[in-house]
């Protein structure tokens, strides 16, 4: 085993550092000046081959060969310099790869460039009230009338819903076909009279998700990705390009370090809580999981760099992240004691004491649900990972 990235990657790192030292100097800029500086910076970083590496040059990307180590070095160096990376969101993580894989040349030209530039912000239109884990049961209807799709129904749990300008959605266009075969993957402009959006207030008090109502909303006939009825398969397209990263391990590691800091700050029996033997046991018990997650992400990264399959461990990282996040949240709740009785001020405001941990204590519950519930994760591990027979109701035989 060897955790160094190797000489080639270190030489590459030196280039990235040089570039950043010369090109990322935003210190005195504010407002619109800063905005346009960032825009230019991203363009130059893309020209250098550091951003949008999986996107062809003709659509505004840098079209680099797959190299997860280089991608990781870029993330590390941009992170260190606090330089902006790609505009992140559903557009880059889901729509662009889908268009590259299944879209028409026209669709790629029409949508990828403005998405990369941040002019199009995409919402995901998958979930509906009532679909839950049975996503293919979507009801929102799309009917081709003349040269337009006419859409009626409702979508829910759309992140970025406040800013979204467009949506990619699973729409039932073939009502007489089977459950999966009746769905198409349509693109929608959200700025039109037939679309209403409404924020969903979450258990945390914040509103990161929106629901969308469609009443005769319209989309051009050729804003369909893949053929009619192929939407389910199109939506399964996943981002393969340099997907492996150790990003989520860094998130968990950061949360754990904050937990240790919290234990230093709060007191138990008149002494810093971190001196309490029970607290030390609790922290090191959690750390066993945090480090298992971290080193497993190294393992996955190493497998990806060698172009090998991730296997069982690749199916577990989300559940591991969720469960360990809960452990951290519960330990924090115990440590903050009566501070948990006070609602925290909004993020980014002044005067947030230990009660700010409530954001994480409640927010980590979202991980149990978003992107496949914990129960579904266990099904996946059991069926795809351990080879157990599939549930009959879910298509097993």
């Amino acid at each position, binding site marked *: *085993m060897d955790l160094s990235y190797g000489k080639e990657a270190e030489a590459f790192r030196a280039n990235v550092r040089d570039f950043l030292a010369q090109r990322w100097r935003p210190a005195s800029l504010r407002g619109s000046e800063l905005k346009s500086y960032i825009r230019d910076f991203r363009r130059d970083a893309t020209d250098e081959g550091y951003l949008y590496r999986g996107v062809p040059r003709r659509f505004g990307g840098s079209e680099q060969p797959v190299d997860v180590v280089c991608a990781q070095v870029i993330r590390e160096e941009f992170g260190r310099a606090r330089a902006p990376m790609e505009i992140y969101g559903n557009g880059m993580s889901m729509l662009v790869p889908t268009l590259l894989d299944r879209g028409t040349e026209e669709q790629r030209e029409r949508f990828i460039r403005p998405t990369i530039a941040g002019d199009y912000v995409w919402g995901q239109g998958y979930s509906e009230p009532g679909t839950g884990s049975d996503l293919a049961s979507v009801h929102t209807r799309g009917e081709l009338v003349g040269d337009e799709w006419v859409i009626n129904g409702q979508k829910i749990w759309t992140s970025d819903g406040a800013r979204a300008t467009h949506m990619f959605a699973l729409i039932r266009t073939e009502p007489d076909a089977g459950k999966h075969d009746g769905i198409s993957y349509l693109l929608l402009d959200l700025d039109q009279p037939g679309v209403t959006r409404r924020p969903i207030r979450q258990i945390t008090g914040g509103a990161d998700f929106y629901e969308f109502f469609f009443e005769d909303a319209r989309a051009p006939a050729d804003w369909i990705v893949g053929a009619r009825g192929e939407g389910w398969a199109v939506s399964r397209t996943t981002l393969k390009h340099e997907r492996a990263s150790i990003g989520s391990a860094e998130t968990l590691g950061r949360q754990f370090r904050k937990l240790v800091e919290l234990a230093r700050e709060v007191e138990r029996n008149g002494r810093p809580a971190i001196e309490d033997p029970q607290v030390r046991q609790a922290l090191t018990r959690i*750390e066993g999981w945090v480090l298992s997650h971290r*080193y*497993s992400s190294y393992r996955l*990264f*190493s497998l990806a760099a060698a172009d090998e399959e991730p296997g069982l461990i690749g199916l*577990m990282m989300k559940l591991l992240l969720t469960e360990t996040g809960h452990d951290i949240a519960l330990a924090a709740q115990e440590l903050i004691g009566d501070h948990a009785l006070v609602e925290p001020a909004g993020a980014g405001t002044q005067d947030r004491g230990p009660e700010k941990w409530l954001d994480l204590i409640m927010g980590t519950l979202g991980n149990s649900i978003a992107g496949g519930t914990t*129960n579904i994760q266990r099904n996946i591990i*059991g069926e795809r990972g*351990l080879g157990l027979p599939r549930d009959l109701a879910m298509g097993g035989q």
Partner: protein
Amino acid sequence: MQFHLSEEQAAIQEAVRGTLEDSFGAERRQRHVDDGGPDFDAESWNGMMALGLGGLILPEAAGGSGLGLLDLALSVEMLGYGAAPGPLVPHLLTGLALSLSDDAALKGRWLGALASGETVATLALGGGWLPESWDVTLTGGALTGRVGHVVGASAARLLLVGTAGGGLALAESGEGMAIAPLDSSDRTRRAAAVTFDGAKATQVFAPGHPRVARLFDAALILSAAEALGGAQRSLDISVDYAREREQFGQPIGRFQALKHQLATMALEVEPARALLWYAGYAWDSDQPDARRAAALAKAHIADRFVSVARAAVAAHGGIGYTWEYPLSIWLRRSLADRATYGAPSVHRARAADLAAW
């Protein structure tokens, strides 16, 4: 960056697993754990030694292969998977201790025989496992004291003994040493209490020598490796059973409740693998966090093994609760692995101290 198993590492693991299965298969294993069985099994011992396990981490000059602790841990994981009997891991640690010593005469005398497995060695640490608690005294080349739990003591010719203040001494079995076999709960690694009353011994490391700490870390890592293998086996037995056993006209593994139970077990085992790898890597490359990594790996994985072995019994229903069903062997090993070299809470407390919290 390389942080997954190489083809060669996977091949060595497979060789150890296969050879152990051939030499210590289900029937032999079951006979071995019957009441009054031996503390040593020559067939599997010879099989492992013929593979070169005894010298895997020893220098080539001593007839070894010169590989690292991580490589050894990968093999030891397979010993745990196959419930290898006798003092294999203590033997490997004795060889490692001698190879770390600067005493050329001592190395010349024993390393070759330890590498080949011709001489069987074991560990007699005493106290409460941690080096600072070892309490056998070494005075004028003679040992006095008692060690409560020595695996394979009757079969061993050499004993590496923990001495007061955290030293290590090497003694040959014989005069001045009384061996009282215990009724060990782990029947695959039976132990005896050993009383030293003037047994002759040679000091390998003086009390407080830094290599004692390093050796103890290696013991924690190998113990974690054995536990990981045992946890994997407990999971595999359970998954196989869930795929075959039918109830209500279908394999029970189709029922979501059991499927989720097995997934939870897998979630305990698979991520722990990388925790072990890191501890081995950190030991081999002498990383600043090597001591903590060993302590945390031992604590975490020992707990996982007990948890998975217990869940495995629960996942089986009645058959899992019987003596003759093989799970009993791994459940008992999990209890031994958790206790040996110190309980998880002991090592978590150490890990907290080592973090300077």
